[in-house]
């Protein structure tokens, strides 16, 4: 096999500094979990030693038509990743309607899918969550469509901060394909 040429090029790469990561642009907002725990999105949910692979969904409990099927599909994804959940992989469902979705309401909604380890529901200040959503690329360029919260409930954003790879996929795709994409795109993190 040909020797990769890149080894010879190590010197400019080894120079000082740290490359900017995608998570530097995630809004590091304060959130509250369904258990009432206070966290910051980037510091506590995305980063770690090692960083978890995270799957982020936006939802709200009373949008049954769209959020529920995506949540249900997420439960299937959870099924595929069960042995990794809560350890290598974390799932975050963040409400777009914090006025209604108190931690208690989220805990109740979460219970509909069983007590699934590593699946955390989160609420916070409306403005903070809007900022977070946009910083994850979950928005529409058309302000009228962007104002329709149901439009944002269909996208799953996932990645791993250690390897700085992020992907988004439709949340209604086959659960197995989503599980595969999550593991495949973050596989470098498991080899560090």
């Amino acid at each position, binding site marked *: 096999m*040909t020797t*990769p*040429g*890149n080894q*010879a*090029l190590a*010197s*400019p*790469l*080894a*120079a*000082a*500094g*740290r*490359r*900017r990561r*995608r998570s*530097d642009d995630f809004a590091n907002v304060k959130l509250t979990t369904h258990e009432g725990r206070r966290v910051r999105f980037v510091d506590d949910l995305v980063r770690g030693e090692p960083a978890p692979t995270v799957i982020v969904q936006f939802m709200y409990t009373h949008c049954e038509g*769209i959020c529920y099927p995506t949540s*249900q599909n997420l439960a*299937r994804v959870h*099924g*595929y*990743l069960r042995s990794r959940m809560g350890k290598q992989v974390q799932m975050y469902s963040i409400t777009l309607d914090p006025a209604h979705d108190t931690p208690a309401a989220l805990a109740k909604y979460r219970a509909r899918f069983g007590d699934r380890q590593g699946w955390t529901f989160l609420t916070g200040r409306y403005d903070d969550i809007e900022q977070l959503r946009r910083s*994850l*690329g*979950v928005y*529409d*360029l058309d302000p009228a*469509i962007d104002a329709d919260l149901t*439009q*944002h*409930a*269909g*996208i799953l954003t996932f990645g*791993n901060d*250690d*390897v*700085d*790879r*992020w*992907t*988004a*996929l*439709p*949340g*209604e*795709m*086959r*659960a*197995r*394909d989503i*599980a*595969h*994409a999550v*593991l*495949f*795109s973050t*596989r*470098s993190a498991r080899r560090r």
Partner: protein
Amino acid sequence: MSISRRDLMKAGATTVAASAAGLPALTRMAHAKGRRDKRRQDKGQPTESSSLYDPSKSAFTRELPIPAVLRDKSGGLSPGPGKVFHGIAPEFSRTHPDYETAWNMAALRVYEMVVEQNYSRIIPGVDTPVFTYRDANDAPGTGGAPGPTIFANFNEPAVVRFTNRLEAKYTYVEHDIELSTHLHGGHSPAHSDGSPAFYILPGRSRDYFYPNASPRRLIDGKLRFDPGTIASTMWYHDHAMDITGFTVCHGLAGFYLMLDELEAGLMDGPYPLLPDLRCALDQPDECFDVPIVLSDQKFNADGTLAYDLLDHNGRIGDVFVVNGVAQPFFRVQRRKYRFRILNGSNARYYTLRLGSGSSFLRIGTDSWLLPEAFAMREISVCPGQRADVIVDFRDAPDEVFLENIMQQTDGRKPDGIDRDKATPLLKFVVEGPNVAGDVGIAQGTQLRPFDPIREEDIVGTRVFEFKRRRGAWVVNHEFFNPLRADAEPTIDPTGCAAERWILKNGGGGWFHPIHIHLEHHEVQRIDGKRPNRERSTRVDLTNLEGGQEAEVFLRFRTFTGPFVFHCHIIEHEDLRMMAQFDPCHPGYDSPLDGVSEIDPAVCGVPIACDDLEPTLFFDTAGDVAKLDGHGVGIHCEYEPLEED
């Protein structure tokens, strides 16, 4: 000319990795991989590229690089064709009817390319890490972006081995990058077509079999290569699932030019009509047939390319790049040149004109020559499209600019043409006296005859609606599933039968250029009207403006699938604005039922659990199902699905 263009290119325009130690401090700033202890430091903001690139100082100071032509692999392929991890197409065997009877396998040529990171001076003084296709005959670290031009004579089949060296340890990014090479405009077996999940995994190789033949059709009672479908200007580029936007903007694209008797005839004789392409092989300095790829780039403050993996709208850059260099110049004689212009941008639309006010002579669209040359003052190309043109510099002023007048601010759609706001992309420095008797091409010159698909050839109609739904994209209300065939056209052994496809843009104001793999298509109508003349014959990419509906005819023959068709705004494609067709022989159904695996021999997938770690993937082959079936899949990566 004492210094050849190739020498100049080597000396500075493209990739000069070896001299990195002598570069200005700026270039060595910060490509380093993040170290954990530095995480919370350095909150430097990403920058407008303007802080690194000032066109008023730097534009048109560097010569246009011309990619070298890929050379036959010295000593052949070792191991031989197909003896690599991802194998070779099953059509590369006597089992395919065309192998013995049509393809000239005795003329087979073999090539090898290594995909690896290198540095490129896209903008002066800054060495930007890019990904390159490197001719394996050349030393490591010498690859450029765009990649080498592949040259093929018609019906001289080729095997091109691609090896993926984009493991994280060899690149500036921290994750491995999987690849899949698509030959855009090619008529290739599914294994070699760059279906998004037919990967070249990191550290692995895949042999792409390009028959370099056209489809066959019953003509005058005999099955012959369909002469109207022989391609001229194809391009190869990465097409890996979910990450194509990232890889292509990092340089993974190159030209693939094919020459048949008809087109060579236009270049031959005492009074040739077209500049000779074949000089590109041995005398690039004297070549007047020049490939030009347009792209737009954005930079971070550290000189790396700015690419947001979570921007799903479409990447729009603020630095205009031609053949890998920001706003270069090109010395030309006062004669006719052929420029094969490719829009290699992820999401930007261009409308091109010559600043001198002269017209282009249009000779080709996408991969094919037109039936007849004609003059055009402005040329529009959406992402992935090609415009093959002749520019006549006789009597031209000393400077002529190739300009873009299409304005665009986001990936939704271009803002429109503003003729008072032109961005110069490339400066032609016109030298010497008029050259008499160069080539005879002129308005009305007959090129490649067009024998259109006729209404009576149509055996069926399919409708595909491309639409935004809940922040993602659907085709006919379905999200992309690589295990599902969204169309199962029948392979017609006579090569004549055709289908009518209605391609609909579901609205919302977004533009979507739709690219169909495998075969050209012929646009009948867009919103009931005939398309523009240059797009009314053979194309492989049709733009749909918001709400538009295109009626196209296309044929299915030669190869079974899967093949994809998709939006060529790559960020839309990466969010899976894609569907799949699987041509089937009469009486057979597609195995792509949405659940079952594909034969792993076709896509070259490992089938044993051991093979999956650490390179776990489940591609179209549906390894999960395969492994589940063997009872060995569970402990690899997956849990059995719980009952709901």
